[in-house]
């Protein structure tokens, strides 16, 4: 599967705005079968659907935070059986850059979601994320 590329605008609650690039692809997963227990009685009050888990991996570049390096991220994409993505999580847990990105489709060319960066003493910084589909890296 080809890489999907989005130009990103990130914004935190104080209005700080950062630009970046997200590049990723979704592939079949090998062995990420979740340990699903039987649902409790509460959950059975609601209709349920089954959601397939795919592997998602790619890179994220946010020059003002990460420099020009494309940081590798890896995670899961949850996709319904009719092919609609539910949500995609990707993260990188390294001492220097402990980051996570999560997003959904907003319209045909846009993704909306968030980006978090955990810095030891400063705690977790949260940014909103708007991605606009880009055909070139």
């Amino acid at each position, binding site marked *: 599967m080809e890489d999907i590329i989005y130009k990103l605008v990130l914004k935190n609650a104080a209005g700080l705005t950062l630009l970046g690039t997200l590049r990723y692809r979704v592939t079949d997963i090998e062995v990420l079968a979740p340990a699903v227990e039987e649902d409790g009685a509460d*959950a059975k009050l609601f209709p349920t659907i*089954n959601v397939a888990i795919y592997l998602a991996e790619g890179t994220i570049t946010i020059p003002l935070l990460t420099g020009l390096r494309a940081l590798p991220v890896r995670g899961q994409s949850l996709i319904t059986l009719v092919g609609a993505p539910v*949500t995609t999580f990707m993260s990188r847990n390294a001492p220097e850059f402990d980051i996570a990105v999560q997003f959904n489709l907003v*319209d045909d060319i846009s993704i909306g979601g968030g980006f978090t960066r955990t810095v030891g003493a400063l705690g977790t910084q949260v940014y909103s994320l*708007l991605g606009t589909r880009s055909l070139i890296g």
Partner: protein
Amino acid sequence: MEEFLYGVLLTGPQGLTLPGKARLQIDFSAGADSMEALAAAPLQRPLIEVSLVPVTGTVVIPLLSGLAPIPVSGVCYLGLFGPLWFVVSGGALFTPLVMQFNFSANNTIIGGVSWRRGQPLGRAFGMLGTRLALPS
């Protein structure tokens, strides 16, 4: 019934920023049956089971749609470890609004809003919401 209120900040592609509010009620007591048909044939890949929980509420984005709260309704995709995804929609025929989000760190929600999707003035926003105390 649980109720949440968020002050939201929307971000457009050019950095245009719009403030707003979202107030949502999640009704854990009744089922949403409309998407039940989606529970379909088994696949040869890992699956998780997700419950669909109805969500209703209002959204106010003054600079986009005026001061009147827009009633919205939709679904929370609830996994075994908590909510995975919220999708709510509302608005009139030519001014549809779809808001979707997930929980993030520090009592925040992150996601996106599409406004007038498919129309010349339609646009998408990124969204960052900070949880507020409900007015008593």
